[in-house]
């Protein structure tokens, strides 16, 4: 009865859907669900941001999402439904870039699972963020190297 929903959303054709996320992780045996929504901010490192483009290595990202789900399930150790979706393409300020949801019997595990999943997505999924600034400039964000021995 556990399960995962892992998705890269081409935002030219669809939007991320927090409703779908919370519905997916609901279960008669679950008392709690924790969700995280990441949105595009209007300011980063002191610069006015007007939008963000996400580049994604889609097949590898889906493989990595599946590994993250396995890792979270193993660490949580009980029943879990996990939802991971990330936007691919250009977003405006306020748009949703990532949705994580975790449903579990008790809230402690739901928070832990949700937090572990978003940290793993941010630090280890093949996704790149390019910020577009009000002055017309753009820049790829500094990020986390995947060369480390801790990444398979």
């Amino acid at each position, binding site marked *: 009865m556990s399960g995962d929903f892992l998705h890269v959303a081409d935002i030219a054709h669809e939007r991320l859907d927090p409703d779908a996320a919370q519905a997916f992780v609901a279960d008669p045996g679950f008392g709690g669900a924790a969700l995280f929504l990441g949105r595009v901010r209007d300011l980063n490192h002191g610069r006015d941001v007007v939008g963000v483009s996400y580049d994604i*290595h889609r097949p590898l990202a889906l493989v990595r999402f599946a590994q993250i789900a396995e890792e979270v399930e193993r660490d949580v150790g009980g029943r879990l439904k996990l939802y991971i979706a990330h936007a691919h393409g250009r977003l405006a300020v306020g748009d949703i870039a*990532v949705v994580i949801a975790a449903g579990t019997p008790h809230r402690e595990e739901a928070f832990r699972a949700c937090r572990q999943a978003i940290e793993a997505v941010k630090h280890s999924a093949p996704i790149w963020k390019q910020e577009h600034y009000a002055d017309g400039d753009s820049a790829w964000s*500094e990020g986390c190297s*995947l060369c480390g021995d801790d990444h*398979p």
Partner: protein
Amino acid sequence: MKIELELFGTLRGLAPGDRLHLEVAGGRVGDLRAALAAHAAAHWPGLAPGLLDKCAFATHSEILRDAAALPEDGRMAVLPPVSGG
């Protein structure tokens, strides 16, 4: 061997169609890394120093360390430091 290397993130735009065709002397991922470094030194003067050392290399299903063999189909991707979420 011939490698078709797909470029992501900050490396996008550095080759037509975001794909770089490299002739690699050797069959290991480390040899691909060296070939890319040579290409970058010759053609990408604006590249941030040290960036390639922080890049990983991957097939469509897994990241491969430098000691791993290059895949038979010759299709690889170079992954700069990631910044999702």
